[in-house]
């Protein structure tokens, strides 16, 4: 499993370097082809060309491309995919087919002058025969077209800032989350040349913790009783589930001795018996026939349970969606938001779900590791050749992430909503003791030298 072929920065750097070199050639070539003295503009252009290939400029461009790639990967690919998967999945739970708007629903495409010929058979078909993937796009387009209403008595500044704060903090989480060894924004080689991000988990948690503040000020500034109640509920929930969430992560951090997501995943690649020498009778210690990897949900089941439940509350899914309990508080703290401001916050809930399940997979389910088939091909890189593995790490990671996400969707559509005092009880009386138990378990494993 050593080495990895996808390298976000490597690719971005190579792409931008090549593009800027071409641009440099094109610009500096303008003046040279002319007869006689070069016009003054050519000087400026060649200076500009020099800037284009300057290392600092290419680094800047690389960062821009890498950040954009991660944002597009999260929003344009994963957000739409997850919304679609959830809607289709709960439709099946409801015993119905669900959304069916697809390309075939767009009969008007046939009216485009020349290209329309490609779509002529669409108009002949019933419109609702697609897979439904375009439904969420259509919903987004509708929300963009709607008017953004600010209530007259709302606190305008905070009212406008709240959705931005939530959206930005949600995107910020993905800066810290690695999707594989190579596909990560925050990454640097450590002393052994392996990718690392020494304080990654801390950063992810900090970004996670910002959104409830946005909910609180959004609910308060709307100057509406329902939104106020919703905002207050989110503040109360923040205390009751964020603490067990963090404590359950502390259990893993104590066990691994690292806040580095890459390191945590690396420790999960060894076998169960390998990781705990005194318990080498466990499978996965080399000679044993059955190989069970040291995924932390086996070692740290209490912490896994706490994280699983607290993350459900983190993304406001139904058993714990009190801040926007639509039956009692209309739409909770979102009541006064309209248009894309509503859509932004509403849609980014799925991104928080993605971040939650990605974090859960990194911490407890072995991250991007999984059985991989080696292929005879390999590609050369700066540090040597890297074998091409099938399937790639990203695929394993996303499979696990979607698997966890499906479990959450399943839970949220078969459970009623709990009451505010009940979630506080669950948080303080059940989850926190369980998380403390997990921490003591970790300490014991380390103290008695069981774990490595």
């Amino acid at each position: 499993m050593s080495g990895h072929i996808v390298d976000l920065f490597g690719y971005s750097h190579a792409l931008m370097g090549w593009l800027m070199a071409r641009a440099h050639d094109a610009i500096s070539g303008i003046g040279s082809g002319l007869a006689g003295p070069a016009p003054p503009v050519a000087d400026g252009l060649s200076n500009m060309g020099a800037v284009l290939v300057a290392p600092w400029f290419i680094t800047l461009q690389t960062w821009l491309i890498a950040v954009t790639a991660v944002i597009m990967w999260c929003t344009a690919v994963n957000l739409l995919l997850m919304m679609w998967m959830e809607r289709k999945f709960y439709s099946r739970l409801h015993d119905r087919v669900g959304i069916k708007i697809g390309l075939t629903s767009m009969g008007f495409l046939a009216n485009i002058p020349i290209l329309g010929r490609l779509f002529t058979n669409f108009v002949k078909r019933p419109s609702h025969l697609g897979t439904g993937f375009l439904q969420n796009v259509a919903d987004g387009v509708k929300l963009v077209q709607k008017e953004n209403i600010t209530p007259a008595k709302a606190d305008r500044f905070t009212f406008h800032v709240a959705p931005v704060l939530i959206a930005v903090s949600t995107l910020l989480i993905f800066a810290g989350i690695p999707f594989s060894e190579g596909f990560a924004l925050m990454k640097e080689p450590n002393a052994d040349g392996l990718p690392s991000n020494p304080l990654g988990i801390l950063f992810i948690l900090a970004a996670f913790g910002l959104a409830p503040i946005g909910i609180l000020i959004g609910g308060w500034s709307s100057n509406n009783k329902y939104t106020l109640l919703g905002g207050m509920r989110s503040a109360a929930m923040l205390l009751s589930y964020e603490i067990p969430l963090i404590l359950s992560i502390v259990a893993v951090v104590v066990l691994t001795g690292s806040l580095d997501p890459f390191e945590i995943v690396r420790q999960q690649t060894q076998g169960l018996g390998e990781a705990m020498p005194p318990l080498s009778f466990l499978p996965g210690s080399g000679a044993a026939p059955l190989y069970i990897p040291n995924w932390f949900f086996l070692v740290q089941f209490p912490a896994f349970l706490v994280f699983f439940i607290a993350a459900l509350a983190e993304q406001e899914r139904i058993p714990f969606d009190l801040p926007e309990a639509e039956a009692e508080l209309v739409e909770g703290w979102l009541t006064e938001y309209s248009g894309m401001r509503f859509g932004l916050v509403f849609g980014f809930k799925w991104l928080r779900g993605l971040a939650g399940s990605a974090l859960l997979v990194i911490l407890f389910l072995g991250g991007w590791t999984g059985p991989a088939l080696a292929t005879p091909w390999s590609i050369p890189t700066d540090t040597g050749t890297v074998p091409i593995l099938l399937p790639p790490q990203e695929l394993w990671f996303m499979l696990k992430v979607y698997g966890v996400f499906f479990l959450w969707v399943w839970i949220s559509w078969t459970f009623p909503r709990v009451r505010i005092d009940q979630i506080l009880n669950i948080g303080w009386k059940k989850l926190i003791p369980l998380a403390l138990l997990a921490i003591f378990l970790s300490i014991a494993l380390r103290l008695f030298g069981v774990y490595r």
Partner: protein
Amino acid sequence: MWINMGPQHPMTHGLWNLKVRVDGETVVEARPEIGYLHRGVEKIAEVREFHKVVILTDRLCYVSSVTWSHAYCLAVEELMGISDRIPARGRYLRVISNELQRVASHLMWLAAYAPDLGLLTGLLWSLRERELFLDLLQALTGQRMNQNYPRVGGVRNDMPATFARDCEKVIRHFHKKLEEYEDLFERNKTFRMRTEGVGVLSKADGLAWGVTGPNLRASGVDYDLRKLDPYDAYADLKFEPAVEPGGDNLARYLIRIEEMRTSCDLILQAVKRIPEGPYRIKAPRRAEGTAFRRTEDSRGEALFYVAGDGGDRPYRVKIRSPIFCTMSAVPTIMRGEKIADVIGIMGSLDVCVGEMDK
């Protein structure tokens, strides 16, 4: 802080307003405001002929039309003195249509109650089975809602030839689905957390405020007019009305599930024992005097008081709506509950604004 739960609020399932004064999340005081949907059915009835009022009483509760028209027809028959001349087949058909409507109404209640607690799956599931009962009603009466089926003197039409077989098929299927509901609802820990011990209506309070029907039986009072004051063919049929001692949301849920089972049982008995013969007699047009008749509606005791002055129109029609009376017990039930439970409690009481505001 006063919060308006209504008139446009997901809680209301209709058009009414519940003003709630809260201290944090706890309800201190609740004030129902009703009357938004008052259509003056009692007054309009005075200018219509006896037989044509049925179409108004159908619209009293759009979820449970047949039971309401049926109650009116019983009262008018009493007034005209033809109660004992109603043919037996007509009586059985009335029982069948009433019980079909009761199951459909209770399923609509379940469909509304589930999303009140945040369980949208329950909505889709119960509407799925309600469709089957609406199909049966459609086969019997020709309509899915506002059936206009009972007549003064019997029912409008006979049942189709395959009706008994269809009923058995649907009910056999429905019994299996009821077990699925139990898995989804009462065996779910979260559902029990939200319903057990919430919104307790004590036996004494229920009786004092005039609560009737499933809501009263959930408080442990065995009060079912089909048993206590039998009308139509109910005296011939064997059934035990369900009673639950709890008085909380869970008891109100359990009682309705159990009532659906009882109703299915009654339908099966009725389609087996239905005699041949006419299903309607010709009723007189004019009537004089006063009469009243009470029936067990899907939501409680429905009472019609009809007065005639010898003409072909009622002189006065008075309707006792069960939910109108139940609503007066709401402030008592609400006190000290959480805001989230306001929705759960109101959902479990099965409010139908059409009949409440008349």
